[in-house]
């Protein structure tokens, strides 16, 4: 049976996806281009008794209130952008240390500082590695509105299955654009569960019946143990999560473009419009963990790589790190904070 398709904006679809994934709570602070996620959630909140909503005093409060809610077993999420993403790193660092399954939608806007309110891909590094830890986080980068819907549902499932902070990295274009989306019902939903206040009936003489959660450690050894546990757990799930997409009109093409998010859509369009047989596209669906194995496979027979992003050196850095040792020359088309059209890409690959 076919699901119905509706014409809807990215911001609206975020809320529909979150509800389909079983989200019950939203904590947030207004910021362009992600504000309508909150206003849409508020509309739902007004009509559904079970939902929770709080417009907080700032992004730090939004992030930490989300953590408080999640601790009690609620699927809570937030959305932010740019300077808000910076402030929220405080909370994400705690979530990373304590394996709290936060879900955050990041509407990337131009940086640095307040930048533009519209669009960029300059929050890749901040979102994936923004804390004072090693970046034990899962980051999806959908390339269109349908993808946004699908990846958000996946993000809630992955967050609660593996308990790492999970992000859906999108942008002002995707969030503000209206397009046709199929509201697919999720095949599986991972259940949430409380991390504290698990039961009102507990044997009070048994210390292990109570959760004492900390993230400050007295000795280096204690801290090292926590870090080692996080690293081991993250490495274990890396390959299960890492995802990518390859696209080409000719499998023998010798040039590989690497792009993510909406820029990857632009590249696809360029390949189709120019009927290019010389160029292939590799799109990391997960920015972190990076699909390194898939990329290495995609490099077979490739003579040239072109990294295209609306940042100066964020995807590029990840690519270089993950193909270390390869001798293939890398060209770049990097436009920090500036949208990249299919026409420009056609010109580039002519």
């Amino acid at each position, binding site marked *: 049976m076919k699901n119905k398709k509706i014409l809807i904006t990215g911001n609206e679809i975020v809320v529909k996806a979150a509800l389909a994934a079983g989200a*019950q*709570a939203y*904590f947030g602070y207004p910021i362009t281009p992600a504000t309508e996620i909150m206003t849409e959630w508020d509309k739902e909140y007004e009509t559904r008794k079970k939902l*929770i909503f*709080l417009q*907080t*005093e*700032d992004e*730090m*409060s*939004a*992030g*930490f*209130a*989300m*953590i*408080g*809610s*999640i*601790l*009690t*077993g*609620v699927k*809570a999420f937030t959305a932010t952008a740019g300077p808000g993403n910076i402030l929220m790193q*405080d*909370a994400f*660092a*705690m979530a990373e240390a304590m394996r709290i399954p936060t879900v955050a939608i990041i509407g990337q806007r131009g940086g640095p500082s307040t930048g533009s309110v519209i669009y960029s891909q300059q929050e890749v590094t901040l979102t994936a590695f923004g804390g004072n830890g090693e970046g034990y986080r899962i980051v999806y980068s959908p390339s269109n509105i349908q993808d946004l819907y699908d990846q958000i549902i996946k993000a809630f499932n992955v967050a609660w299955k593996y308990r790492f902070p999970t992000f859906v990295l999108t942008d002002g274009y995707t969030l503000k654009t209206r397009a046709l989306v199929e509201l697919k019902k999720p095949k599986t939903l991972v259940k949430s569960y409380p991390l*504290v*206040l698990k*039961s*009102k*009936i*507990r044997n*009070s003489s048994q*210390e292990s*019946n*109570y*959760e*004492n*959660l*900390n*993230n*400050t450690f007295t000795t280096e050894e204690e801290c090292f143990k926590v870090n080692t546990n996080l690293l081991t757990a993250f490495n274990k799930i890396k390959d299960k999560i890492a995802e990518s997409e390859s696209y080409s009109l000719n499998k023998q093409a010798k040039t590989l473009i690497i792009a993510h998010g909406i820029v990857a859509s632009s590249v696809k369009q360029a390949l189709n419009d120019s009927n290019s047989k010389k160029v292939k596209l590799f799109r990391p669906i997960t920015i972190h963990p990076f699909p390194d194995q898939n990329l290495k496979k995609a490099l077979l027979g490739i003579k040239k790589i072109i990294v295209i992003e609306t940042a100066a050196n964020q995807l590029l850095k990840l690519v270089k790190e993950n193909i270390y040792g390869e001798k293939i020359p890398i060209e770049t088309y990097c436009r920090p904070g500036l949208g990249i059209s299919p026409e420009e890409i056609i010109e580039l690959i002519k």
Partner: protein
Amino acid sequence: MPKKSLNKHNSNLAWPKCWKHSSKPHKFCPGCGHPIVLKMLGEIIDELKIQNNTLFGVDIGCSLLAWDFFNIDTVQTHHGRTVPVIVGAKKSRPDALCIAYVGDGGAYAIGAQHLVNSRIRNDNITTIVINNANYGMTGGQDAPTSIPGQITTTTINGADKFYMKGPEMVANISDIPAYVARGTVDNPIQLKMFLKKALEWQIQGKGFSFVEVLSFCPTNWKTDAKDTLAFLNKLKKIYPVGEINNI
């Protein structure tokens, strides 16, 4: 460390039932006021029989040393962020007793915006602030509560004349009634009454409740027992003890 034997023979030395034994002796400095507050709090939690339905949030700063103090679900958060964590938890579990336990830096400096807005929203939580007039954990720096002339490691010639009256601010920034009080560790019986009233306020669903506690910090005040009490008395003159209700 004697445990049960003490409980049996001398009820005055009894530990609250909800205290966690394996984390004692506690991690606070000798002469610190925190354990007095935590003892009173523990006794109330025992009396109200809410040990199994309480979430206790502690900040960064000396309050974090209480992260494993109780057999009570506890979460240690980041500096100043305990109020929002507790707010988020309370929104999701309105039936649970949710307490934010923070220092004067966490409440009035780095987390001031959270305290102000939680009060304005009339969140149904209880915030307990330990006011020792300096930043204890980092070695005694100037706090919003440091009093005029106070020597700290960042006011080596004496603090300026400006200081923060937290409970008075909390009581007065909203017309909505809240339970607000200032207690002191040298009067634990009165302090216990204030804390109990604050928790009952939350249990009755009346909204925001707030207790500031004037507390000892001999390590950073660099005082002996006599001078510690003398400095606390000085604080009491600036920060009047009692209920500060607008109800």
